[in-house]
């Protein structure tokens, strides 16, 4: 009941006109970048990060939450209408969703996706409200060994589970961790890797890294193919954007199953909502095969409903893990963690004690964002598709100018612009050769925590390495990690031997 009182207080501070405006701005921006091909919520959050420092923390995070959820809604619109998923989590929606659209049921497909995302997000938010405080209390006992285990878990899971190639994922992680070590060492005060350049005494700014890797690198990557790739064919979304009773009845169990599959993945740092969307798609397909008239392959409503619900359920519980444990599971969550740190806040157990106003207003804004997103997506999905009329050269030119603006505005130094360009080229190289970006971002953001807790633990044990595996929590985390790795390895082998789509 305590949670409910606190949530009510959160609503009262989130429902002020100014904060409502930020939710709305976040939702609109998130949907817009989700709809535009090639842009995902991580790029939107990266570009907004420098600008939000003109806002107070609560407003900034409320806006970020809107962008994060909005990106998920917008992505599915394009996945359905054009068969172009903006990020990996929307790929599973293209299979049956685009077939529904080709079948003349585009509007119903969009409605199925929007309602599915709404249900998944809502259930996840309710769960976060009740479980996050308990999770935070639990993690209040964490010492250096536990935090190190947690960070290691996030590193290994994101770089080997999510990535196609574990070597590429780990390489991205090493670069991220390495970037995080530049600057003054907090233990000894030694200058590390700055080679006397005063611009690097404080390390490489997180904003520069974020904008370079997630925004500028993406622009270069799109430039490298835009004049060669054939354009997609957009299907008109005219029709009734509401579902009939029969369709609702057909989709309802899939929404429920998708949500149930998506929920746990937000807390297990297995790298965002890509895996649960595929699992739930697969589950629906298996169930469908046993029915009298299998519908998969012909635009099955369940094949779209389940991944949409799963994707947003994961996004929702991922926010809970971020707030309660300080554990980011995706690139977007890593940027939000970076934003918390820039404001001097450390997500995790202490956040719920020290800044309850912020936490509960943010949690309340999740619910508001879901409702706003359902309203702006259900009847108006067709209008959003009009964004594609912006000529590509001007869209990407504008994004590039905003990259430069954001970095120069926060640092005021040409050095950071050159660093931005260099890291942007690294981001381009990584994209071109299929090296995942999320491990790099998570490495940069969690690197200092990992190093500090590792050295703290070793200092207190006089260099005895067994300190990392004493105590129940690290042992549980390591065995969980082992199970996750084993399951991934197994499913990779199974996929290789039996691939049927």
């Amino acid at each position, binding site marked *: 009941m305590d949670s409910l009182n606190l949530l009510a207080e959160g609503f009262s501070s989130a429902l002020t006109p100014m904060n409502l405006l930020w939710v709305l701005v976040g939702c609109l921006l998130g949907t817009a970048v989700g709809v535009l091909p090639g842009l995902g919520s991580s790029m939107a959050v990266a570009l907004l990060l420098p600008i939000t420092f003109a806002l107070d923390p609560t407003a900034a995070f409320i806006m970020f939450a809107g962008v994060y959820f909005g990106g998920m809604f917008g992505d599915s619109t394009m996945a359905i209408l054009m068969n172009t998923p903006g990020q990996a989590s929307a790929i599973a929606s293209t299979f049956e969703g685009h077939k529904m659209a080709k079948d003349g049921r585009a509007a119903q497909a969009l409605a199925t996706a929007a309602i599915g995302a709404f249900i998944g997000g809502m259930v996840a938010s309710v769960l976060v409200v009740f479980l996050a405080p308990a999770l935070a209390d639990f993690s209040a006992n964490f010492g250096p060994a536990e935090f190190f285990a947690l960070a290691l878990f996030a590193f290994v899971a994101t770089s080997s589970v999510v990535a196609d190639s574990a070597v*590429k994922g780990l390489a991205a992680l090493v670069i991220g961790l390495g970037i995080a070590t530049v600057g003054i060492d907090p233990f000894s005060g030694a200058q590390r890797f700055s080679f006397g350049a005063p611009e690097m005494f404080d390390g490489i700014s997180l904003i520069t890294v974020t904008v370079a890797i997630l925004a500028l690198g993406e622009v270069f990557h799109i430039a490298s193919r835009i004049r060669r790739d054939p354009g997609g064919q957009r299907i008109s979304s005219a029709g009734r954007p509401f579902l009939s009773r029969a369709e609702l009845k057909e989709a309802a169990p899939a929404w429920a199953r998708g949500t149930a599959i998506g929920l746990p993945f937000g807390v297990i740092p297995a790298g965002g909502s890509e895996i649960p969307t595929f699992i739930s798609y697969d589950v629906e397909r298996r169930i469908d095969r046993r029915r009298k008239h299998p519908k998969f392959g012909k635009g099955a409503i369940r094949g779209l409903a389940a991944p949409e619900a799963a994707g947003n359920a994961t996004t929702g519980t991922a926010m809970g893990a971020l707030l309660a444990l300080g554990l980011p599971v995706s690139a977007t969550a890593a940027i939000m963690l970076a934003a918390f740190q820039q404001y001097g806040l450390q997500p995790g157990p202490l956040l719920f004690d020290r800044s309850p106003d912020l936490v509960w207003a943010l949690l309340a804004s999740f619910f508001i964002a879901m409702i706003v997103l359902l309203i702006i997506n259900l009847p108006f999905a067709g209008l959003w598709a009009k964004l594609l009329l912006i000529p590509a*050269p001007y869209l990407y030119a504008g994004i590039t100018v905003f990259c430069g603006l954001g970095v120069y505005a926060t640092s005021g130094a040409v050095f950071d612009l050159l660093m931005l360009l260099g890291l942007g080229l690294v981001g381009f190289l990584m994209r071109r050769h299929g090296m995942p970006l999320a491990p790099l971002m998570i490495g940069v953001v969690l690197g200092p925590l990992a190093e500090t807790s590792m050295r703290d633990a070793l200092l207190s044990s006089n260099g005895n390495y067994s300190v990392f595996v004493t105590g129940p929590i690290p042992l549980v985390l390591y065995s969980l990690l082992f199970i996750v790795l084993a399951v991934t390895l197994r499913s990779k082998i199974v996929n290789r031997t039996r691939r049927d789509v």
Partner: protein
Amino acid sequence: MSNPVPPPAPATEPQRTETADAGQTSSRTSWWDGRSGLLLSLLMVLFSTYLLIGILTMDVGETDFPGPKFFPGILMIAGYVLAVLLALHYLRSPERPQETSAQQFRTFTDWTAVLWAVGGFLLFALSLERLGWIIAGAMLFWFVARGFGSRRPLFDISFALLFSSAVYLAFTVGLGLNLPSGILGGGF
């Protein structure tokens, strides 16, 4: 509008890169074909070497056991190992991206477009404080638009200036950010 994401299904499956154009490979089989991913290996070597030089030249006083070199040292070794693994991967199984357009090009990457964007950004970074936000920003906009295939250079100049001026006004006057006014600043 073209789409930067390759058509859906392949994006998560490794076969995307392997299904090479079996018919035309004979016409362009350089050893480097599909092995440009070795650049990733080079990137790891360069980064690890940067860490190595930093560790060797680091000025550390007396510290207890896990000193400031400990953690970067692990990363450096891991970086070299991963560089070797990446190199082995690309030597054994080259990754040829599938050409999605009807034409065949010498390189998968459209380097002209990338160079317009990168060059534009470099010029922007170097000239921002001298020329001021409005001119440098407009120049960046124009270069990137050009790289992305805009075919109206004169119209773009005016549009770019309009865009950078609008950003300047919105962010200096509206949000109070400090953007350089440059050569336009003194005269007006």
